[in-house]
C-alpha cells in the first residue's frame, strides 16, 4: 500500500472557523477567554444534579436554542443545535452564505464530517421519561432524527447543501479530531473540494454524568467548580464534563485562492491509530498516541523542530495526562510549549478535538499559546513547558492530540502557510 502524499504546493487549508463553547458562543469570544485563562465550569443548578456525586459542568455560555429560530430549535437535539450554530459561523467565516449551490459550488463536491461521542442522548432520555409517564402514543415523532448520532452532520449537510457525502465518526473523545482527519482524506483523495468538519456534544444528563462518575473518571471538586479541571496538577481528580461544538471549513489552497479567500493555516497532516490495549485505560506507554503524532508530522513534511506547540488532550484524569506529557517530551523535546484547553472548557468529549483544533489554528495564525489554568503544583516528572499564562511565541507548526475511550488516538498537524 502506498500512502497518499499531500501535494505540498497545494496543501489543504483551513478557511472558516465556528464554535459555541463554555467560554463563548462564537470563536472570537472563545479565543479571548481562552487567552485570559477564564474557566467555563460552574455548579449544575438543576434539581436533578442534587443527588449526584458530580454536580459541576461546563455548559455552553450561549444557549444554542436562543440563536436559532424557535421552531427549528424545538425539532433539534441540543447537540444538533450546537453543531448548526458552529457550522453557520464557520460557513459564513469561509465566505459563504446559503447553500453550496447558491455560492456557485457544485454540491456533489461538498462534504460534511461532524463527529460526536454520544449524539442526542438527552432527547432519548426525555422521551424515555414520556413513554414511562404517558405511554408510547406520546413519544415524539422527532425522537429518531434528534437522537441519531449522525443527526448533527446530516442537518449541517442539509444546511450547506452537501452531496459529496455526510459522515459521522464516533470514537468517544477522539470523534471531533477524527472528523477533521477524515475531512483531510476526502480532499486528498479528491472526493470533495470543500469539507465542513468538526464535532459536537451536549450530553449533560444525570445518567451520563453518573455513568462517567461511576467509572471514577470525573472530578468531584463540587465546591470549587472553576478549579476542578486541572491537567498536570498533582491534585487533579478527573475530568469535568463540557458541552458545545466546533466546526472548520477545509479546502485546497488553490480553491481558496481562486475565490479570493485568505486561509488561517494549513492542515498539513493527520493520523489515527488504535491502542488495542484496554477498553478505557490509555496505554501507559502512550505508544499509540505517539505514533499518531509522529505520523501526522511526517505526513505534513514539517520538521519536528518546527512543531513548537502541542494543544494536548490533557483531560485532568490521573492516568491520562502524564502518559501524553512523557511522549511529547520524548518525541518533540522538553522545550515544547503545551497547553491544556480542558482546564478552562472542561471536556467536550466528541467536540473537544474540534474546539481544540480551532485554538491550535489560532495559535499558529496569531503566534500566541493559551495558558493552562489550575496548575498550582505540577506533577512530578512533568518536563514539558506548560505556561500558566498566555505565551507569545512563533508558532511555525502545532499539533492537536485527541484520544478516546476505546483506544482511539488522533493527531492533527497545523502549520503556517
Amino acid at each position: 500500500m502506498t500512502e497518499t502524499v499531500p501535494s505540498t504546493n497545494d496543501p489543504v487549508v483551513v478557511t472558516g472557523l465556528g464554535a459555541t463553547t463554555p467560554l463563548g458562543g462564537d470563536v472570537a469570544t472563545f479565543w479571548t477567554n481562552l487567552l485570559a485563562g477564564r474557566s467555563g465550569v460552574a455548579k449544575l443548578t438543576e434539581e436533578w444534579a442534587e443527588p449526584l456525586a458530580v454536580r459541576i459542568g461546563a455548559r455552553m455560555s450561549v444557549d444554542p436554542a436562543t440563536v436559532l429560530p424557535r421552531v427549528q430549535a424545538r425539532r433539534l437535539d441540543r447537540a444538533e443545535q450546537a453543531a448548526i450554530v458552529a457550522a453557520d459561523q464557520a460557513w459564513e467565516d469561509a465566505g459563504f452564505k446559503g447553500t453550496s449551490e447558491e455560492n456557485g459550488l457544485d454540491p456533489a463536491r461538498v462534504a460534511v464530517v461532524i463527529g460526536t461521542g454520544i449524539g442526542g442522548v438527552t432527547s432519548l432520555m426525555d422521551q424515555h421519561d414520556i413513554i414511562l409517564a404517558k405511554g408510547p402514543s406520546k413519544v415524539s415523532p422527532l425522537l429518531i432524527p434528534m437522537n441519531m448520532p449522525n443527526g448533527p452532520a446530516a442537518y449541517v449537510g442539509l444546511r450547506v447543501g452537501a452531496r459529496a457525502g455526510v459522515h459521522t465518526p464516533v470514537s468517544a473523545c477522539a470523534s471531533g479530531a477524527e472528523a477533521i482527519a477524515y475531512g483531510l482524506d476526502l480532499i486528498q483523495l479528491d472526493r470533495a473540494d470543500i469539507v465542513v468538519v468538526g464535532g459536537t456534544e451536549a450530553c449533560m444528563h444525570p445518567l451520563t454524568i453518573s455513568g462517567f462518575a461511576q467509572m471514577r473518571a470525573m472530578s468531584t471538586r463540587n465546591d470549587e467548580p472553576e478549579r476542578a479541571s486541572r491537567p498536570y496538577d498533582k491534585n487533579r481528580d478527573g475530568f469535568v464534563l463540557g458541552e458545545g461544538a466546533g466546526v472548520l471549513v477545509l479546502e485546497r489552497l488553490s480553491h481558496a485562492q481562486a475565490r479570493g479567500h485568505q486561509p488561517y493555516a494549513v492542515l498539513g497532516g493527520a493520523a489515527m491509530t488504535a491502542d488495542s490495549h484496554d477498553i478505557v485505560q490509555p496505554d501507559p506507554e502512550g505508544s499509540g498516541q505517539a505514533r499518531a503524532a509522529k505520523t501526522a508530522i511526517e505526513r505534513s513534511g514539517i520538521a519536528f523542530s518546527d512543531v513548537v506547540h502541542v494543544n494536548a488532550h490533557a483531560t485532568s484524569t490521573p492516568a491520562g495526562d502524564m502518559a501524553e506529557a512523557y511522549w511529547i517530551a520524548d518525541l518533540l523535546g522538553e522545550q515544547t510549549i503545551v497547553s491544556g484547553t480542558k482546564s478552562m472548557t472542561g471536556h467536550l468529549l466528541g467536540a473537544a478535538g474540534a474546539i481544540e483544533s480551532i485554538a491550535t489554528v489560532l495559535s499558529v495564525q496569531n503566534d500566541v499559546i493559551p495558558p493552562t489554568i489550575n496548575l498550582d503544583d505540577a506533577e512530578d516528572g512533568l518536563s514539558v513547558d506548560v505556561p500558566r499564562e498566555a505565551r507569545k511565541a512563533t508558532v511555525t507548526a502545532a499539533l492537536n492530540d485527541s484520544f478516546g475511550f476505546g483506544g482511539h488516538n488522533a493527531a492533527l498537524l497545523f502549520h503556517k502557510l
Partner: protein
Amino acid sequence: MASTEEILAGLAEILNEVADVAPEDVSVEKSFTDDLDVDSLSMVEVAMAAEEKFGVKIPDEELPKLKTVGDAVSYIESNHS
C-alpha cells in the same frame, strides 16, 4: 363542545407552536403540506397535539386523509367527545 371557530383557533395555535405557521395563514381551504409547509413528522405532532386538545383519537389510517385544515376541523367536529 367546541365550536368550529374554536377548533380552527386551536389548530392555528398548534400549527404555530409546531411548525411556525402564522395564525392568520390558517383557514379551512389551506393544505397542510402544500400551503402551510407542514412536513410529515410535524403532521404527526399536530395530530398528537390535536388529540390532546380536543379529546379525539386520530387513527393512523385517518391522518393521511386530513389534507386541509378544513378536513381536520370536520374530523374533530364529528369525533370529539
